[in-house]
């Protein structure tokens, strides 16, 4: 059985593939020839080892330089060509801008609707029920009655979103607020990353001045200060105690569609309960 003798230049030829194709096409053969000549003139193992180290270092330093050189040349050539054809260039740039904008927009919608799952545990078992303005279900008592009587749902929570003024030392900030029933976090399977969730007794009238603040609002308006937990903030003139911070990306199920960033969730139960999140 005949074995082919190992040819070191084969390894070198493989390393030369790190160079850009155009450069390789021009100089691969003389470079390989030079390496063979150098290898032939190296008399000791040490010299051959040094030659290999030098060859690898040469490729590692020169190949990126050749790449950037070719890219720069291509760029200069492109600019030169398109400078002389300004209408074509404008059309190409316009077409690119439209295509990129359309692709980004379509991906944004697909990502929100089809790809990215809701940041809740078991999102597939959640349904959202909207109360129509003319519907009969109004107020806390009606909701609680409906919640306990419906045979189709394991649990239900109510929330209502609105905008309110968050008052601070240096001015008010308009923030989105969802007023919820106390069980919303439990129903969605979400826990605050800081502080605690709402307690059942906080659903009762007169016992509702607590809030879980949205992560982004916590970062933007309060600099991520953990000392905010237990402090009172004024929302529409009413002092509300911050008891926790919601996880990043957490909003109410409705807001998952609109991607609202700011959120202040309070358990001030609304007089009307326009939306139910149920499982």
């Amino acid at each position, binding site marked *: 059985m005949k074995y082919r003798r190992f040819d070191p230049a084969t390894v070198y030829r493989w390393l030369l593939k790190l160079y850009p194709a155009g450069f390789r096409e*021009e100089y691969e053969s*003389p470079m390989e*020839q*030079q390496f063979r000549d150098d290898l032939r003139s190296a008399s000791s193992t040490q010299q051959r080892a040094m030659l290999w180290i*030098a*060859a690898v270092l040469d490729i590692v*330093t020169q190949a990126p*330089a050749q790449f950037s050189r070719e890219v720069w040349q291509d760029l200069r050539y492109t600019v030169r060509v398109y400078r002389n054809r300004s209408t074509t260039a404008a059309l190409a740039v316009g077409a690119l801008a439209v295509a990129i904008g359309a692709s980004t927009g379509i991906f944004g919608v697909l990502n929100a609707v089809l790809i990215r799952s809701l940041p809740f545990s078991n999102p597939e078992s959640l349904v959202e029920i909207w109360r129509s303005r003319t519907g009969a279900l109004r107020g806390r008592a009606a909701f609680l009655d409906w919640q306990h009587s419906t045979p189709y749902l394991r649990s239900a929570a109510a929330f209502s979103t609105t905008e309110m003024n968050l008052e601070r030392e240096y001015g008010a900030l308009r923030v989105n607020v969802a007023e919820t029933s106390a069980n919303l976090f439990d129903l969605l399977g979400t826990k605050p990353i800081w502080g605690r969730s709402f307690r059942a007794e906080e659903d009762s009238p007169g016992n509702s001045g607590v809030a879980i603040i949205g992560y982004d609002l916590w970062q933007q308006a309060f600099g991520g200060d953990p000392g905010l937990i237990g402090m009172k903030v004024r929302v529409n003139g009413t002092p509300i105690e911050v008891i926790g911070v919601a996880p990043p990306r957490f909003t109410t199920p409705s807001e998952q569609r609109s991607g609202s960033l700011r959120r202040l969730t309070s358990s001030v139960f609304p007089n009307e309960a326009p939306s139910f999140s149920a499982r």
Partner: protein
Amino acid sequence: MRGVPSTIEALLPLPLAIFHMLLSLSEGERHGYALKREIVQRTGGKLNLGSGALYGSINKMLEQGLIEESDERPDPHLDDERRRYYRITPLGRRVAQAEAIRLRELVRVAETHLRLPEPA
């Protein structure tokens, strides 16, 4: 530099390897490996170009019009016919001259400032 056309001045200062190659090619046509050996010999082994640096510089010089590939080939019995030979162009010669003048002026300044001893 006064009296040097802007096309030449834009190429100065020349990288050391390119200046050495132009010096070698000013004596006649050479192939890449011969250029490398000559530079090693001239610099006492201090400048030993790897093949990437060597052919990268040759590529650059070809693009800048400092050298051109020679069609004349030596007798195939005397040399490997795969080797490519290069020769200096008139522009390359003028650029090498301008670089030499630039270096001479630099050495003159150094002699004044550093009070170099006269060569033996």
